[in-house]
């Protein structure tokens, strides 16, 4: 069965420090890959997505993610976090376009001043 693992429930980083959030998936082929962010009480905002092509994907708010087929990973990175980045981050996969998204459990990002 398809699954998505986000091994870190919480991550705390200092403002200005770099960030990497991990995501691993289990699926037979290369799925469509997504990162969403959810601020408290808010909806799910798409940060970036990977369907095919260049394995380094640029998203909004200065985020990027790299697809590594050999590791079944799609880790999210940001070189320098801002206090406004404090939120919960979800990795999701879909077997193709317009199919259901399968979600990781989320990683809560805490920013230290």
């Amino acid at each position: 069965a398809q699954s998505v693992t986000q091994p870190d429930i919480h991550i705390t980083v200092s403002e200005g420090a770099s960030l990497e959030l991990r995501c691993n998936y289990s699926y037979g082929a290369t799925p469509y890959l997504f990162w969403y962010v959810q601020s408290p009480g808010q909806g799910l905002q798409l940060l970036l997505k990977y369907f095919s092509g260049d394995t380094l994907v640029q998203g909004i708010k200065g985020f990027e993610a790299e697809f590594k087929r050999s590791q079944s990973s799609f880790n999210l990175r940001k070189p320098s976090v801002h206090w406004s980045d404090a939120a919960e981050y979800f990795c999701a996969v879909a077997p193709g376009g317009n199919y259901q998204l399968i979600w990781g459990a989320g990683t809560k990002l805490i920013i230290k001043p």
Partner: protein
Amino acid sequence: EPEVTQTPSHQVTQMGQEVILRCVPISNHLYFYWYRQILGQKVEFLVSFYNNEISEKSEIFDDQFSVERPDGSNFTLKIRSTKLEDSAMYFCASSMTGGGYTFGSGTRLTVV
């Protein structure tokens, strides 16, 4: 930027009552979805809808649930006879062909 709009943002209902959650997808999108997120848990897929019929549904989406696109703009989720465990945030999403899902801000449903 086009948005998916959900109403109401928060709904409180008595156990056993019926609720209808409303969504206005992005106008040129063809695929529509409902997901839910119970507090502290993963986001879960409920149902997808295309060409006026359900294209996929999860085990959660049992006879208690139904979806409808009553006109050209709205997409609704009806929950009959709500239970306490239906309390969750319900998200509507829409997409064009090929993926690229846009989510609404959600409706927080509280069953008391």
